[in-house]
């Protein structure tokens, strides 16, 4: 099992990295705006007003990038669709997620292209981002919005921000720090993951690919 498997298209990777950069920028600048304690973060960007501008630019680019990606390729549409189809097998995977997370292993049923843990991550992210984008939009144009709506937008924006930042930490850990699952990281750079890793983590998907003869040789 020394082959490689194409996991992410260029389109998806581009979206992911735009998202990632914007996310970090939004997180840092947002944190600087929302608490005086974290306001010093803003000095990285050149002050609180620059941070506010960056927050809005990043929000705009980020939102626009989603729209564009959804329009030009089918991958995101199917990803979003799949993410919300949480099956019994996904649940079984998620159930053992904590053990996996801590570096242990417990068997789980064969997973599709996105396993239960990833689906969980995606669901939280998608929901959070939707909430944060809508509430952010309302806050951006506060003077022309009903006051009560803006008042509701504020806790919603903060709440989702904190939630997806928590999710982000887990995602970052699994993608970069976790000694086993970080094998998938390359998938976000060149699009390929090791055949073996695919077999181990997404057996159902792997079998599909194999049936279609899509396992590529390395070198």
């Amino acid at each position, binding site marked *: *099992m020394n082959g490689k498997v194409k996991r992410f298209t260029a389109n998806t990777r581009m979206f992911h990295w735009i998202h990632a950069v914007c996310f970090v920028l939004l997180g840092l600048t947002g944190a600087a*705006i*929302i*608490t*005086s304690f974290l*306001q010093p973060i803003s000095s990285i960007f050149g002050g*609180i*007003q620059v941070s*506010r501008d960056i927050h809005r630019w990043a929000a705009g680019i980020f939102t626009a990038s989603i729209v564009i990606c959804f329009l030009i390729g089918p991958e995101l549409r199917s990803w979003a669709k799949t993410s919300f189809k949480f099956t019994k097998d996904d649940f*079984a995977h998620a159930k053992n997620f904590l053990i996996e*997370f*801590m*570096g*242990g*292993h417990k*068997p*789980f*049923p*064969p997973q599709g292209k996105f396993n239960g843990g990833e689906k969980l991550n995606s669901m939280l992210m998608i929901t959070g981002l939707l909430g944060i984008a809508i509430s952010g939009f309302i806050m951006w144009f*506060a*003077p022309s919005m009903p*006051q*009560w709506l*803006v*008042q*509701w937008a*504020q*806790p919603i924006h*903060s*709440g989702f*921000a*904190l*939630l997806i*930042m*928590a*999710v982000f*930490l*887990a995602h*970052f*850990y699994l993608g970069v*720090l*976790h*000694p*086993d699952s970080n*094998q998938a990281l390359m998938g976000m750079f060149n699009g390929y993951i*090791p055949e*073996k*890793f695919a*077999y*181990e*983590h997404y*057996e159902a998907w792997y079998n599909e690919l194999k049936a279609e003869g899509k396992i590529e040789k390395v070198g």
Partner: protein
Amino acid sequence: MTQKMVFIDTSRCTGCKACSVACKAWNDLPAEKTQLISSYQSQADFTPNRWTYINMTERYEAEEGKMQWLMLKKQCFHCADPACMAACPSKAIFKTDSGYTIIDQEKCIGCGYCVVNCPWGIPKTNKETNKTTKCTGCIDRVENGLKPACVHTCQPGALHFGDAGEMKEIAQERLAEVKKEHPKAQLYGDAFMGGTTYLYLLLDDPTVYGLVENPNKPITLTLWKNIVHPLGGVAFGGAALAVAAGVFSNFAMGNYRDRAKKIAETHEKGGH
């Protein structure tokens, strides 16, 4: 300094607008271009450079042939427990012991959260300077023994300034007097937001003047500051802790040291 108060006796206000001119003159605020809207009113709302103005309400009861022209001088209420202060993420808003609610212009970042959470929408953000401003209560005058500029200029005696206790007494006396003619007359300001430093005597229900009936700190503000932030903080902190635990656990299990070996090992991790 003792707790101060401005008592606004709307029954005595003639709507001459001298207060709004005195405010601009003292605070060096530029004049703004306007047009007549209705009644004799050209100032529709607060702006970053308009901290007080007169709101005019015309009411006609055709059956009795009775006309009322209600005047309401509007400015910041200087709440004892101000929503703006709770909403400010930059700790720019503070209370003085004299009862004023002040926006520290150095600390203000112009985010506008105070604007949204003020029950009356009083503070306004200047888009160019990114600073939010509102009535300062002429704290610079008051702390030097002068009356606020608006009070100082008021000719008909609609504005009174002094120690809070004394003002409350005058307000009660005037209320008793005015009630004879206007049974719905009431004080506005003492029963909410911890009690306001600017206390009104209204001739009718607050809604007649376009004022909120029972102004409150928005429930969303409490939700935001007292629930969402702590909970979100816990979630975020929890995630951070979990990550740290994960790294430690993997380390302890030798997963980092033996990474290559473990990856190479052919064992079926799936559900077989």
